[in-house]
């Protein structure tokens, strides 16, 4: 329990680089970035994130597919996303579909439609080409090495 309270300064540190990179650029056409859900919760679990993600990749427990509102980490990140506003320029929105290491979240996590997910993935990849989004978190911030 004490371990979970101590990382507070470091979780802000981890969040800062992303925040620094983004607000500088808001294209006039882009809507304001929507609020990011459960961000702090993600920060807290950062330490176990890598392991958890690896587990989840091949993990198919039935309850993972059930949408849990409020509790649990399974929720629709993109529930308020309109298809037309998914654009490589709208990095505020796209970054919600990246995990802390810069990877595109799976559909199981985003829970958006296949069409939307395809578009998101496509636009994220375009944004990466233009260095608007990172390919990997290692490029922008120091990620703690796990042995």
């Amino acid at each position, binding site marked *: 329990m004490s371990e979970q309270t101590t990382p507070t300064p470091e979780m802000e540190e981890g969040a800062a680089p992303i925040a*620094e990179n983004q607000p500088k*650029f808001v*294209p006039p056409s882009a809507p304001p970035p929507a609020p990011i859900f459960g961000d702090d919760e993600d920060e807290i679990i950062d330490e176990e994130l890598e392991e958890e993600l690896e587990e989840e990749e091949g993990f198919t427990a039935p309850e993972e597919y059930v949408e849990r509102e409020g509790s649990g980490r399974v929720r629709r990140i993109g529930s308020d996303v309109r298809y037309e506003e998914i654009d490589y320029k709208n990095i505020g929105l796209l970054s919600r579909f990246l995990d802390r290491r810069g990877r595109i979240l799976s559909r199981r996590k985003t829970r958006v439609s296949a069409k939307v997910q395809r578009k998101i993935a496509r636009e994220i990849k*375009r944004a990466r*080409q*233009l*260095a*608007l989004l*990172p390919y990997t978190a290692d490029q922008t911030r120091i990620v703690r090495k796990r042995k």
Partner: protein
Amino acid sequence: MNGANERQYELVYILRPQLDEAGINSFDARLCEAITAQGGHDIATELWGKRTLAYPIDRQYEGYYILHRFQMPPTGTEEVERLLRYSEDVMRFLLMRRDE
């Protein structure tokens, strides 16, 4: 000649941050000239200005972003891309159709 045979394009490119205002303007003028020479028109420009890159490119941490939207027949893309590719000041570019 034009009309149905034209497409809406969107182009973003990143210039090296060392370039001064004059350099940026002169390159951009050259590019717009090339687009026009290829039958492009209605060029809209958005200057994003100097932005921090999400990752370093050629040891640069910043870049000057410029976006253009224009109409052009598809045959023109080759020449426009060639100009961007062979300009040393251009670190990255992305030319896309924006129809539909």
